């Protein structure tokens, strides 16, 4: 019969915990490797020029001062162009979301056999890994300067991203309701429509809205290479040293993107 007081838990010598040397060495190796990589990249990245940030700070200040007096005299025009940018993002995201549904389901391992999943995933990798700007240049050549080239560029790139996100959502669904639907004699497509899509809908909507926000920003950049919208106007005015006008456009873009952020947050709540 042992009493609690008899047992010596507090005074007992602590058992020596052996140091896990492999783990320690690995940790050290990773830190050293990171340090070597940083040193190796110092020269090519011209990091030695960091001193200019301080010695030539005046240049930056005088350049920034140009933006200090935003010129809103043409605000109607800027708003219209901002609208075009949003419209480009809207169509690009919409087309991508629609196409990402079949591609997303077909690249989910629990929905399709590997000989479909793997090719579809590789295709989506290609869509995703090539930047919108590259696609935009391609489409400017094909369909000419203007917003449509921007729509197509966003469409292709966003399809790759959304298909991957959608397929991850599909892979996380609860398989049990899907089985119950299969047991009614439903087809595979019907299993997806009634068993999978209701489960993933909130996530899908949330992802699509988030990509829409990102695409509004991306669409302004696409304007730089001639794909229409406010980006094109902004880039032209910066190149022409019209900093006041450029500042006005930047402010309009900032406000718009924030508003879209707020709006899509509210929309997402509706779908949860």
């Amino acid at each position, binding site marked *: 019969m042992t009493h609690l007081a008899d047992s010596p838990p507090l005074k007992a010598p602590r058992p020596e915990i052996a140091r896990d040397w492999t783990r320690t060495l690995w940790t050290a190796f990773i830190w050293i490797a990171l340090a070597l990589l940083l040193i190796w990249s110092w020269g090519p990245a011209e990091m030695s020029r960091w001193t200019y940030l301080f010695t030539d700070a005046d240049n930056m200040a005088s350049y920034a001062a140009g933006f200090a007096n935003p010129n809103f005299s043409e605000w109607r025009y800027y708003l219209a162009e901002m609208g075009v940018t949003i419209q480009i993002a809207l169509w690009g995201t919409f087309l991508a979301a629609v196409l990402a549904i079949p591609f997303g389901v077909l690249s989910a391992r629990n929905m399709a056999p590997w000989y479909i999943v793997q090719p579809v995933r590789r295709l989506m990798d290609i869509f995703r890994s090539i930047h919108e700007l590259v696609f935009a240049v391609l489409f400017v050549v094909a369909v000419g300067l203007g917003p449509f080239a921007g729509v197509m560029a966003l469409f292709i790139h966003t399809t790759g991203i959304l298909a991957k996100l959608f397929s991850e959502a599909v892979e996380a669904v609860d398989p049990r309701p899907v089985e119950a639907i299969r047991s*009614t004699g*439903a087809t595979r497509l*019907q299993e997806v429509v*009634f068993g999978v899509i*209701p489960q993933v809908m909130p996530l899908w909507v949330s992802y699509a809205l988030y990509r829409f926000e990102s695409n509004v920003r991306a669409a302004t950049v696409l304007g730089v290479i001639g794909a229409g919208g406010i980006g094109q106007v902004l880039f032209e005015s910066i190149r022409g040293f019209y900093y006041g006008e450029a500042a006005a456009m930047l402010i309009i873009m900032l406000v718009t993107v924030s508003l879209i952020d707020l709006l899509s947050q509210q929309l997402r709540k509706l779908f949860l």
Partner: protein
Amino acid sequence: MGAISIRNLSKTFGKKLALDNVSLDIGSGEMVALIGASGSGKSTLIRHICGLETAQYGGGAIDIMGSQIQGGGRLAHGARRLRRDVGVVFQQFNLVGRLSVLSNVLLGNLGRISLWRGTFGLFTGEEKRAAREALARVGIPEVGWQRASTLSGGQQQRAAIARTLVQKSRILLADEPIASLDPSSARRVMEVLATVNRENGITCVVSLHQVEYARRYCPRTIALRDGRIVFDGPSAELTNAMLVELYGDGSEELVLPDIEAPKKTPSRPVRPVLKPAGVFAA
């Protein structure tokens, strides 16, 4: 013609033998309990009968009302068509939580209506009326427009049974339908199953964890242990002493401590089928 006929069914998961040469026949209109401890193969057997799982290569055959649903480890060609005659009720109810209860029940139609009408969810007024009637039959007529996830466990299970009624299945397989329910919901669900069996002549196979429910609701019991049938006969013959003989110490798991004293009600209480709204609601 029997409802379910199983010949030499075997299934291994990895190295574990889940079903070991199981053969049995279940006649049309029977109400059969499948009992056994956890891991004895009850769920596996049920999942094989409805074709959600296939036996190992050369691992036997299953006929549903005279047509093969699987044989030799492969689903038969017409398995999808046969599935609509076999309604399945699961332990976790398996409703689509974000759809309304009525939509969930309507999904029972998918195997019977045209492909495009099913895929786009275009159900006729007649089908919707039938779905509401099915909900009334299982005693939850008032919850049709609620999301399925907002229902209590007992209500969800009854909605799942309503789905099999809409499916017009001739066979109802229930895989531990009451294992996740409190005792009073469990009784209600068993009553509904018994009523459906008695009044619609639907063959019911119910896997149960506790032998009391088998004795009370099912005339015939099949007992499994380690994937083999160790008893197949009238439930009344399955005494506690016999359970100890069959399962040894494991039999404790199968017998409830006597809380609800089933001896006081020797015959099944006959409840009216159509209840006014709210009486059944948990």
